[in-house]
């Protein structure tokens, strides 16, 4: 029983990371109807920036954390303005290819600038365990969960209780009507991309803290889980993304614990992919999404 609780908590911790990235994907999809294949690499790049500040410039963790989030926001904003906005006229395929171009470019740039060897992120978000009776709760997982849930709450409050949030939602729902109401819609969409970039940066920083070492490809696994979580929850549902991420984290962890023969660490990813495929085929609107009818 103790083992079970430990694994559930650990799974929630991993799941929180997937949820953060999944939420970024959903945010961007709702705002601009684009699946940003580069979302994971954006988070990776942010993490490297943080690493460089801490390791080469002697910054301490928390100021770096905040600064990195700020830079990530600007990066996301800039990418939408400079790359996505001009290309949206050319159609869905072009935009998909643009996000793939960004994926490949950011991946290459990170290797080029900082080298692909293993790095360590000097982060206080690791930890041992707390003992609660016979259960050893991993601190890491709790920190991850708290950080992500904290962000989710802040974003939720922003979207639902502020004028900016209302304008952001309006822009996503009906851009033309919003423009007529005086909303600078392209700016709003870029702000959405900025927030998504912040969420990816958080996912990256937490993931890098959780692993002993990281390399430029460390987010490739996370983005797959995040896609699975986003689709599982319904690509337009932020709540779904969070629940999807947490569920996925717990499920995979439990499967890995109780079926160690079949579900070796190498097999975790294919399992997530199998889930992704199953959801895409049988219930593409996800567990919480709306069904889009396309009868032919």
């Amino acid at each position, binding site marked *: 029983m103790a083992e079970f609780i430990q694994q559930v908590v650990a799974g929630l911790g991993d799941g929180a990371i997937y949820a953060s990235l999944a939420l970024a994907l959903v945010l961007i999809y709702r705002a601009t109807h684009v699946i940003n294949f580069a979302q994971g690499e954006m988070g990776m790049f942010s993490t490297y920036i943080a690493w460089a500040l801490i390791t080469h410039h002697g910054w301490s963790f928390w100021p770096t954390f905040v600064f990195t989030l700020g830079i990530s926001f600007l990066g996301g904003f800039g990418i939408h303005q400079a790359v996505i906005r001009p290309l949206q006229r050319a159609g869905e395929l*072009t935009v998909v*290819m643009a996000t793939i171009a960004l994926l*490949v*470019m950011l991946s290459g740039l990170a290797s*080029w600038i900082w*080298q692909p060897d293993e790095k360590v992120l000097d982060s206080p978000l690791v930890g041992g365990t707390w003992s609660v009776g016979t259960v050893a709760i991993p601190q890491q997982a709790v920190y991850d969960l708290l950080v992500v849930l904290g962000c989710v709450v802040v974003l939720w409050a922003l979207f639902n209780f502020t004028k900016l949030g209302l304008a952001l939602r309006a822009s996503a729902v009906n851009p033309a009507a919003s423009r007529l109401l005086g909303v600078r819609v392209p700016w709003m969409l870029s702000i959405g991309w900025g927030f998504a970039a912040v969420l990816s940066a958080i996912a990256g920083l937490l993931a890098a803290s959780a692993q002993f070492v990281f390399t430029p490809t460390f987010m490739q696994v996370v983005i797959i889980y995040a896609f699975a979580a986003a689709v599982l929850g319904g690509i337009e549902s932020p709540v779904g993304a969070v629940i999807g991420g947490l569920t996925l984290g717990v499920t995979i962890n439990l499967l890995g614990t109780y079926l160690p023969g079949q579900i070796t660490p*190498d097999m975790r990813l294919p399992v997530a992919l199998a889930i992704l495929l199953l959801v895409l*085929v049988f219930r593409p609107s996800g567990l919480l999404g709306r069904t889009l009818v396309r009868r032919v």
Partner: protein
Amino acid sequence: MTARRLVPGVVATLLAAAAVCVLPYFLSDTHEYRFAFVATFFIAALGLQILTGYAGQISLGHGGFMLVGAYVTTILSVDHGWNDLSTIPLAGLFAGVLGFLFGFPALRLRGVYLALATFAIPIALIALAKKYSDFTGGGGGKPLTRVLTGHEAYVTTWPIAGGMFVLGWLLLSGKLGRAFRTIRESEIAAVSSGINLALTKTLAFGISAFFAGVAGSLYAIIIGFVNPDTFQIELSLLLLIGVVVGGLGSLVGVVVGALFIEYVRLYAPEILSWVEAPFGSPLDPKRAGAPAAVYGLILLVVLFISPSGAAGLLRNAYKSLARRAYTLRRT
């Protein structure tokens, strides 16, 4: 298609074929070896062009079908004594069947959702290759029966590339090609013109996977070694980038795409030095990651300047030249 419209294509193809035959006399063994790789990428990109450029189905996982072809060839030739070249059709077929089967669940997916699903293919296959290491040699890889010289690689791959090109052209200029193009424009229109959407889409997957399987098989043969990590997601993305840069929906573009894939990798350091120069070259352009950065950058530039790729540029250039020639003739 009228004879007049065919002429430029046929002329270009004949010229290209002649060039391919003549080239070895001018190239060193190393360069011939590189060009052999161009041939394998050409075949794989051709397959992807059929699926994405003609049938309009985005695939981010074609490297996975190359993996299948590579391993079929390796296992048959190493463990069962087959002659490596004779395994090629079977490797293609095996990959093709797998692609065809993938087509079925893929039927329910559109656009980006399909792209997401295809992401899964190479990742899953790599994990399987690593797991069943008794067959595949696992993560460490498996050597093949022989190692080829550059010249041998060249003369092995290019005739097959030529054959595949003709095969592709035949497939695409017939009813099937038209069905593919209709689907790309509008699936609803396709169904209302009586096209069996399910069959056509799965065929598109199967055929393109066949091409990728052949390419993978050749790749293994000319490298002499097979390793699951070769077929990571980057390869699939690279194939797609090559097809887009060459020009979606253009067979000629595939040549450009294949050249792009092989040579950007080699010339990335040069390109990066040139980009860096105004900033005082703070980073060594030869470091790892340079090629990927350049691929991405070039793709972005192409998307902005000429979304229909090199083929689009060539087509526009040809058109404006033809117009000039026409007006000159009239005056």
